[in-house]
């Protein structure tokens, strides 16, 4: 691990710790309104001020961090699991199954990621409770974000398929499921980790885009995306520069994730 990677990992750990301890650090609940002080500047009671509805901005930021940083890895885990199962089975079995999986992957890769999400989001009801909107947004990303990983995992599994140790396992009567779990998956583990870490910043950015467009996490539930919706009005932003904190935090986290992942693993 290089010095820069250690710094990035430390920053990520600090942000995760802050997110976990949010409940104890917060001056108020994220949805509580202080109606007498809307749009207030930073003060001892509200270190990042309040939003136009009088809600504490720091509380919303920390809860938003929790939503984005807990659910993006969860979605990444789901998509990596789907990609691992589909890619490994396709690579191991080969033949028509591999061709079908790769054709489906090609078809969905041909579609820009946001278009795909918009189609699926349009099929689901928009008028849902905030918690459901969070689940929908991240479930959608988890269920639809496996395509790029499948191709890589399938290629790697194809390489393992022709290896001597797998031939030996097959000749000693090992069943396909056992082959997959005991022999193929452990050899592809570094690739799974790499795909998991690559997906996290992608999902964080996608959530931000969807929420800014009003199709992600719904109010009053905060997330980095819907906290940035206020950026549309740049006149208030230049008067209250601390409102940029969600963007700064998002950029730092995404950059740290990019740095933490070793380049050799990305190259794999």
């Amino acid at each position, binding site marked *: 691990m290089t010095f820069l990677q250690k710094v990035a990992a430390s920053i990520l750990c600090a942000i995760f710790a802050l997110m976990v301890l949010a409940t104890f650090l917060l001056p108020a609940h994220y949805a509580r309104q202080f109606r007498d002080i809307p749009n207030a500047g930073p003060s001892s009671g509200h270190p990042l001020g309040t939003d136009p509805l009088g809600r504490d901005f720091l509380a919303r930021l920390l809860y938003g961090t929790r939503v984005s940083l807990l659910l993006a890895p969860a979605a990444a885990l789901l998509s990596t699991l789907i990609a691992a199962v589909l890619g490994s089975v396709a690579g191991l079995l080969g033949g028509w199954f591999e061709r079908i999986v790769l*054709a489906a992957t*090609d*078809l969905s*890769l*041909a*579609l*820009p*990621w*946001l*278009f*795909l999400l*918009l*189609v699926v*989001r*349009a*099929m689901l*009801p*928009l008028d849902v409770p905030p918690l459901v909107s969070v689940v929908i947004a991240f479930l959608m990303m988890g269920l639809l974000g496996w395509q790029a990983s499948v191709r890589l995992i399938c290629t790697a599994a194809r390489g393992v398929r022709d290896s001597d140790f797998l031939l030996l396992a097959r000749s000693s009567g090992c069943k396909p499921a056992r082959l997959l779990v005991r022999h193929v998956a452990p050899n592809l583990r570094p690739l799974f980790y790499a795909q998991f870490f690559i997906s996290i*910043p992608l999902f964080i*950015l996608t959530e*931000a*885009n969807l929420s*800014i*467009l*009003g*199709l992600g996490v719904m109010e009053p539930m905060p997330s980095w*995306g819907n906290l*940035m919706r206020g*950026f*549309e009005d*740049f006149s208030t932003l230049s008067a209250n520069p601390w409102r940029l904190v969600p*963007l700064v935090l*998002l*950029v730092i986290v*995404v*950059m740290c994730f*990019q*740095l933490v992942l070793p380049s050799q693993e990305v190259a794999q």
Partner: protein
Amino acid sequence: MIENKKSRNLLRLGVRRLVCLVCLGLVGALASATLVRFAPGYGVAERELDPRWSANSVEALRQKQALQQSLPSFYFHYLSALVHGDLGESDSLKRPVRELLRQRFPVTGNSVIRGLGLAWVAAALLASIGLSFRGWLFEASTTALNSLLLSLPSAVVAMLAVHLRAPVFFAIAIVVFPRLYSYVRNLLVRAYDQPHVLAARARGLGSSAILFRHVLPLAAPPLLALLGVSFAISFGAAIPIEALCDSPGLGQLAWHAALSRDLPLIVNVTLMVALVMLAANSLADFAGRTFAGSPS
């Protein structure tokens, strides 16, 4: 003889790609039809909501619709209408989808092509400069800039573009550039480190001659493949950028359709974008293989 075989292989590849495109288009159309058919609220006539209609009449109306819209007949009607260029009517805008697509596609196409052009020129230029100045300062500063741009959500880039009154294509270029630059740079560096390029440098060939005669031909096939991929990236970026910059293109149309749950519209927009993407990817792949002269 070898040339003939190569051309035959290329022709076969082209035909295979075309058949693949038609098949995928058909699969996409059927998937779109399925989405429209099974979407919540499909087949509910406004008359059903009229309180003056009795329960029996509403039931009769539903049965009539169900008879008219059995699944095979629905698929048949959808595909035959599609073949005749009838993409249905938008639920929210109450206008033919075909007309909307005809109006919006040139706007997005124009922004995407100009944005892509700008991003490619900037990425290629910076990567070429990087080949000449391989110092740590240049590398560190370009990597930092690239990481920063990669970490910005495209919607934030769009809001910045609105604030700075920058054109839509410029915002698309800002989103696409960092995704291109790292690949272009790696490809050029890899080609530049090849033994024959080293030999050319040792013989005293100028840097531009090395770049155009030895490095670019080697890096061209993967660069052409990257061109196809960059189309998908820029179309994806067009959604938040057009929506927030109020540019009347396909991205804004898709966003509007998603917000108003206008399924016939969004499904047809997506189908069209998918076909354009597949065609662009196939063309880029075909061009790459033709350039490399090694058809599979």
